[in-house]
């Protein structure tokens, strides 16, 4: 394992591997690079549908892929305005917390079979889901802290949608648990490798999961929280400069962790590629998992070009009616399928 790093003592290697995992590959650096790609893809794909160019003039040769970098530079030179009535500490620190908590779930989601000796993965599904569920709480607090009516309404909408779509989401995850009989994501992928991908075993759970992800990350048609023609920018209305960049990036990072979990739960993760060691057990399978989740992300951001925005009361009603029933049906299906298969 990592024989090329011969000058480093063997006892340090697990630490280095974990650092690499958290900071570089599925972790921080990969997320930043992916954010560049996915925001570029979203704008470019929508532009393609809408008969225009999209980002182009920042690095024309690459099709404007570093547009986000240019935007970030611009943001960083803008003034960070703190409204007079805002609650100072939450207003300033919550975006950072949001960012941290949207990155954290990626640590608990394995991208390769050799993950379990970096972090013990017995309860990785539970931990990943638990950390994704923390984010909305901060979002509601952030909307309250800004002391703006539109932020406040946005936060309330988030709370309403949270309670109505978190239940189907948890039911979808629970039906995955019921299907595989394990909370260990490495084992879950192993089971899928042996039989079929989860999306075929339980398509209902996958659909409910995707709907809940669209809701949680504010993709169209569920961009009800940010709704620009109604609420300016929802809970984030008062943010400016680099802080705006942070809060704008949070939904994309959330989207990444949700998609990573989706590809592990339902798309059999690193399925065709498997092995041991740092390279064969983590990096190569990791790339497969990563590509799968990027495809899921691309699908989710493309919805923007097709749908208008849904309405709050109808979304809440849908969340408690057909999405909920679908989630219950997914649970039932999981019970039946797991009974038949093993």
């Amino acid at each position, binding site marked *: 394992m990592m024989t090329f790093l011969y000058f480093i003592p063997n006892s340090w290697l697990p630490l280095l591997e974990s650092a690499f995992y958290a900071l570089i590959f599925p972790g921080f650096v990969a997320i930043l690079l992916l954010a560049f790609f996915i925001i570029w893809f979203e704008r470019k794909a929508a532009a393609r549908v809408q008969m225009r160019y999209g980002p182009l003039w920042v690095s024309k040769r690459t099709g404007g892929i570093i547009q986000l970098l240019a935007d970030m530079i611009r943001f960083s030179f803008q003034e960070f305005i703190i409204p007079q009535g805002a609650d100072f500490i939450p207003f300033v620190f919550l975006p950072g917390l949001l960012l941290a908590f949207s990155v954290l779930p990626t640590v608990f989601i394995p991208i390769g079979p050799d993950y379990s000796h970096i972090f013990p993965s017995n309860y990785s599904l539970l931990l990943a889901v638990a950390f994704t569920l923390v984010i909305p709480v901060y979002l509601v607090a952030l909307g309250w802290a800004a002391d703006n009516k539109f932020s406040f309404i946005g936060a309330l909408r988030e709370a309403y949608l949270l309670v109505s779509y978190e239940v189907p989401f948890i039911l979808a995850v629970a039906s995955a648990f019921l299907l595989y009989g394990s909370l260990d994501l490495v084992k879950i992928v192993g089971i899928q490798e042996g039989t079929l991908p989860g999306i075929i075993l339980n398509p209902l759970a996958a659909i409910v999961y995707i709907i809940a992800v669209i809701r949680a990350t504010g993709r*169209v048609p569920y961009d009800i929280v940010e709704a620009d023609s109604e609420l300016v920018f929802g809970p984030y209305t008062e943010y400016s400069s680099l802080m705006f960049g942070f809060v704008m990036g949070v939904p994309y990072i959330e989207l990444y962790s949700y998609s990573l979990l989706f590809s592990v739960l339902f798309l059999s993760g690193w399925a065709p590629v498997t092995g041991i060691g740092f390279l064969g057990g983590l990096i190569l399978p990791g790339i497969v998992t990563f590509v799968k989740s990027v495809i899921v992300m691309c699908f989710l951001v493309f919805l923007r070009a097709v*749908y208008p925005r849904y309405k709050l009361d109808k979304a809440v009603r849908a969340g408690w009616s057909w999405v909920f029933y679908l989630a219950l049906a997914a649970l039932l299906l999981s019970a039946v399928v797991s009974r038949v298969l093993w």
Partner: protein
Amino acid sequence: MTQEIKTVPFTYEVLSQLEMKEGILELQIGPAHAGSGHMRVLAWVEGDTVVKVDPDVGFVHRGVEKLSEDRLYIKAIPMVERPSLVDTVNANLGYVIALERLLGLEPPPRAQYIRVITAEISRIMSHLYGIAIYGIFMGSSTVFMWAVADREPFIDLLQELTGARVTYSHIIPGGVRWDLPKDFADKVEVALRYLENRMKDYEKVWINNPVVMARSMGVGKLSAQDATRLGVVGPNLRASGVEYDVRKNDPYAAYADFDFEIPTFKEGDSYSRLLIRVEEIKQSMSIIRQALKRLPEGKVIYEDYYKRMSPLMKEIYDKTGRVKFTLMLTSLSPPKGEAISRVEGGRGEMFYYLVSDGGKNPYRFRLVTPSFRNLPYFTHVMPGHKLADIPVIYGSIDYFPPEADR
């Protein structure tokens, strides 16, 4: 969700009572807001339900009426176009018809036909713009981009005809400024076929979109009786089931010659207001085709004005079809009197009232625009709906603040 008409007048007493009541939040949507346009919408919400809406108009008042009292008759033409920038031909036409009634002249039939063609092209552009704004207010950037881009072939047509892209000032007292270019009919046909194909895409992505249906069906309902009582005009009135169109009821230009229908819908909700614009685009296409087919020969300017042209001007007109302004045309002084005219603009009936005291400037000019008359939708239809319905109703009535402010 039916709306009963609330006849409580807007007074500051009512307002303060509302503010005193507990649990009511006052929202100032605009004037710098993505969902307000050039106006401010004051909305009072109780929970998520709107209890009162007060449209605060006047942010883009340009003073067209007063300014025109200080100008020659012909110089008011570019000004009357300004309020409704996406429907300039109809605005221009209404003013010129009022002026012609003052002058007591009747333009030649070819000029009348050209006026109809340009006015219908303008109507198509106006409706496309309305669909675009409706799209972006409902959160669909795709339909916004599409509809704005699909105005382009028609802008190009009028650009070829007049040289301008937005304010054409093509219609003048006695006729029009340019005759149609030679292959204009073919180019119009190309543009119309393009739009016909595009309308199929709109139907797929926008009109039959389940989210659009869920959000706009039954939202912002106004019955036929209430619509006539509140005096709303244009496609919005027809979407409520009232068959009223100035082109049919009080024909002007050459509209009496054409065979077209007035589409109406019974529902009177936001969705039918979207559908009616689509249907009217189809009717406009049919009118343009009929007009191009039956385009009469002859001059495009009033015979008397042609006679008064200098030999050079006549030569230019005969060669290029371009009307040079004679001194007679630039310094019109109609006899003492008053005249009114009505035209059916893209957003509804436009009303013009012109008073002459025999001088070179209008003594009084009054302009009533359709957007202004559609304001009751804010005060009477929006209350009782959810907060998220405000942009939907706003977008569906195709309200254009500069037009209302004049």
